[in-house]
């Protein structure tokens, strides 16, 4: 089994009647990678995820997860899934709910017990273990759903909108848990509308539109080679600002501000020193990284792919 790829799909396609929901999805996710799956509404994200999970049969193409074909039952033992708008067996208590899903994973009872305790503690629901899910708030349900997805210590986890319904504390919890998963070499396939979440958690993202990957990129390359810097200072003479061009380009000069693009952060202290030495009063030198949102809009277009 090739250890390197957690997900490997080739021209995965789903047609509903005349309409192709997913035109041809080709993507690779490496083992241990946190992968963000982005795209406008109706881009075919949900159908794609459902095909990978074996919920929906692809019309054509192939896909393997953890080196095994989709739907392989042995492979499912090492997989976790938190569906979007997760709905529950709400007549169960938190503990029973996890017990049921752990049993379906085929976990030995003793291991399951300790794992349930550990996860209830981790998602902050220890005090609610005997409570029926019916009485849970949306955020609590999202937390128990997350615990469910991690019961079997999966090697690959699908999280579909894991932070929807969560307050800032809950969102931070999800973020931290994703980080822990990465440290444990678990691959995470993250579908989220919250680009800021993706930005801080993912290693790599793919943009999809009309059911095709139109761009895949490392997030570390998001602003490689260009950092937008905003300088606020008083006493900027034309001579001083002209001298700034040795560190960067695209200078936009205002009365008390300069906007420019530099190629490395290391230029910032030099710029500051230069400005001070030439008698300017420096209030701020602020780097502005290119945001994922800008890349998103640029990639999928303002119309959102409609």
């Amino acid at each position, binding site marked *: 089994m090739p250890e390197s790829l957690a997900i490997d799909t080739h021209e995965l396609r789903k047609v509903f009647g005349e309409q192709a929901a997913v035109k041809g999805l080709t993507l690779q996710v490496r083992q241990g990678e946190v992968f963000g799956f982005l795209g406008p509404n109706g881009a075919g994200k949900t159908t794609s995820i459902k095909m990978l999970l074996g919920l*929906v049969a692809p019309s054509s193409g192939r896909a393997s997860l953890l080196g095994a074909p989709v739907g392989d039952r042995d492979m499912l033992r090492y997989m976790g899934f938190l569906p979007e708008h997760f709905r529950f067996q709400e007549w169960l208590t938190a503990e029973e709910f996890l017990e049921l899903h752990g049993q379906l994973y085929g976990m030995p009872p003793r291991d399951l017990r300790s794992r349930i305790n550990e996860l209830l503690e981790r998602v902050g629901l220890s005090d609610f273990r005997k409570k029926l899910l019916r009485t849970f708030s949306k955020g609590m349900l999202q937390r128990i759903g997350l615990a*469910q997805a991690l019961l079997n210590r999966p090697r690959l986890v699908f999280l579909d909108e894991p932070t929807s319904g969560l307050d800032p504390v809950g969102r931070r919890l999800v973020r931290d848990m994703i980080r822990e998963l990465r440290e444990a070499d678990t691959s995470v396939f993250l579908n989220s509308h919250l680009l800021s979440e993706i930005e801080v958690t993912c290693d790599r993202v793919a943009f999809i539109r009309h059911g095709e990957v139109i761009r895949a990129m490392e997030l570390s390359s998001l602003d490689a080679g260009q950092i937008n810097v905003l300088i606020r200072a008083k006493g900027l003479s034309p001579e001083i600002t002209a001298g700034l061009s040795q560190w960067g380009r695209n200078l936009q000069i205002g009365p008390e501000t300069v906007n420019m693009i530099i190629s490395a952060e290391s230029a910032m202290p030099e710029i500051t020193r230069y400005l001070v030495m030439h008698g300017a009063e420096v209030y701020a030198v602020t780097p502005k990284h290119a945001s994922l949102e800008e890349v998103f809009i640029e990639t999928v277009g303002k119309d959102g792919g409609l």
Partner: protein
Amino acid sequence: MTNIWILARMTFREAIRRRIVATGLVLGLCFLIIYSIGFHFIFGQIVRTASAVSGGSALAAVTPVANVEGANTLLLLGLYAATFLSIAMAALLAADTLSGEISSGTIQTIVTKPIRRMEIVLGKWLGFAFLLGLYLALMGGGTLLSVFLQAGYLPDHVLAGLSLIYFEALLIMTISMACSSAFSALATGGIVFGLYGLAFIGGWIEQFGAILQNPTAIKVGIIASLIIPSEALWRRAAFEMQTPLAGVLGLSPFGTVSVPSLLMIAYTAVYLLATLAAAIRVFEKRDI
């Protein structure tokens, strides 16, 4: 096998937690109370009339026969109602199970576990079968007990009769589940009760056909039974439990004249298995 068992337990637990069991129990007890009261007065009347008519004359020998016939007819009436309620329970229990969980999404985390879809269907089937067994034990057993305590009467072939009624409930439940794997709960309910109605009217056409000795009517009834053999099971059950005299005399409201053959019972068993296989097949192929 383990997975089937887990799903069966889950199904049973769901029925308890969603108060389906409690509701069935309370309403079932209400049914039994009303039935027992009704039996008490009607059977009392039969006994008094029979002994008044015979009045110590030579006809006295007939009295116990009249009592037995009366008790038997009232018993079959009770069992017929209990059967109908069991069938309604069977249809309702299973109607929402697969379709409901697909549309709500609760099935998604189950299907993505290392479990066969077949095991989900079989597990749920087993859970419902157990629930229906309990329900029928209460309703049918309660009816029999009530008659036995009041009249000291038990019909022949009680176990065969109850088994056939249980078989009928299982059949309806299986059909309901198969429909539910493809259609919404509402559509499933419509189909199942539609089929039940077809079986019901087919059964009566066959009965009257037998009384009037009209072979065409009998054939219509048999064809209806082939389409949906539920009513045939009830009529076989009634045949097993009715008194020999009732069989000879012909039509009683809740007994039977035209008796479904054992071949029909075997056909029904195949029918049930095929329906279950269809439920599995449809659910396996379905996009969720």
